[in-house]
């Protein structure tokens, strides 16, 4: 009998709470724009922050409120952006998909070290010790802060230099922000050639420090038919607005530091 009472009482309290909550949810319901939920569902959900908002749902809210452009998500493909713009009713301005590239080729074989680093496995910490252990202070330290921060697992460190898996990279730019050497940049997916070096060292100095780096010889600058390459501070730089992917620079480069990327990746 007492068990019955206990059951009824507890069930009663539970039922009462349930009814109360049901009623309350009716009266206290807040009008939430259903488009927020819809957009949130089609977003990647990686919460990478590439759009500049705290996460995917924060971005969805901002889009619906009209505070963010519909194409701010760097990860989404054009089809997702199209869906978002249909939901919100504003046109996408159309953006160029980008991909992260590590502008350093100083693998353990090529690049010389100044000292033996035995500190913690962190690029930031290493970079603070006199600019890092590599003789070239502009190069990738290869301790993988970028790999740790990448929400898509697209970066790995191979032979002491970070390398981006273009199949996985979505161009969110997290790695470019965390790299203490600023050696990772976003290049357009349509770009076929890139300069695999960031060193501002002078030619002779560079040859001494790393057998792979750009020596600023200006051969590429002279040979480029569309004036897309300039050498400034002893490093070649490609202007992708002008580049026609002709490949003459890569062919002429005596150091073979202007590299071709495979365009097979989508």
């Amino acid at each position, binding site marked *: 009998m007492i068990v019955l009472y206990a059951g009824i*009482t507890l069930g009663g309290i539970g039922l009462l709470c349930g009814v109360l*909550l049901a009623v*309350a949810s009716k009266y206290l319901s807040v009008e939430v724009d259903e488009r927020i939920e819809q957009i949130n569902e089609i977003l990647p959900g990686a919460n990478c922050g590439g759009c500049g908002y705290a996460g995917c749902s924060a971005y969805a809210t901002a889009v619906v409120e009209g505070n963010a452009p519909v194409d701010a998500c760097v990860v989404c493909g054009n089809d997702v952006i199209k869906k978002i713009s249909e939901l919100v009713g504003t046109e996408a301005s159309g953006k160029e998909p980008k991909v992260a590239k590590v502008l350093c080729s100083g693998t353990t074989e090529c690049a010389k070290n100044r000292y033996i680093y035995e500190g913690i496995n962190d690029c930031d910490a290493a970079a603070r010790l006199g600019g890092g252990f590599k003789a070239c202070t502009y190069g990738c330290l290869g301790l993988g802060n970028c790999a740790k921060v990448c929400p898509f697992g697209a970066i790995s460190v191979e032979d002491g230099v970070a390398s981006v898996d273009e199949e996985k990279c979505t161009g969110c730019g997290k790695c470019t922000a965390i790299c203490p050497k600023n050696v990772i940049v976003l290049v357009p997916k349509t770009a076929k050639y890139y300069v695999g070096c960031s060193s501002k060292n002078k030619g002779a100095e560079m040859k001494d420090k790393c057998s792979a780096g750009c020596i600023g010889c200006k051969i590429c600058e002279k040979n480029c038919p569309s004036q897309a390459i300039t050498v400034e501070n002893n490093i070649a730089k490609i202007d992708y607005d002008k580049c026609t992917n002709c490949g003459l620079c890569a062919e002429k480069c005596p150091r073979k530091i202007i590299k071709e990327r495979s365009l097979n990746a989508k």
Partner: protein
Amino acid sequence: MLKDANIFVLAITAIFVENFVLVKFMGICPFLGVSKKTETAFGMGMAVIFVMTISSLATYLVYKYILVTLGLEYLKTIAFILIIAAIVQLVEMFLQKVTPALYQALGIYLPLITTNCAVLGAAILNIDNGFNLLQSILFGCFSAVGFTLAIVLFAGVRERLETSDIPEFLQGTPIALVSAGLVAMAFLGFSGLSF
């Protein structure tokens, strides 16, 4: 006895002498989980104060007028869990409607409290200590203030730990637990004030 004590004694006891986290070891989960930054720790503390005060009121009323009347005092634990969960939900809806700003500020901490044993602990201690309604509410509120004090202090300690040179095998949770123990030992000093 604590139930005959005045408000001042009740406050000192709940906040310092019998601090929920550091002396009674209740609510350790949020104490370790939400104490990485002072701001979030403070937010969690505020949410706990809010919920603990209201749940002390509600559980007292349910115990006194439903469970005691029916002679079902032994059901208090499970009944309180039910009530606290319902209250947290209700409070969350109410806040979202009335003060969206506060709702935003408390964020995810509010639903987290549903499963916080400190809230249940306060409700049960109110009954065990034989408090009346006013004392229950005050004790719930002061206990939560003690929780806030502990978690904010500990967040300060953890922020210092972030930049300290800690041996690899102690990094992360191990050093957090060790320092939690040390903070708890510091609070042991207040036991001399007990009534």
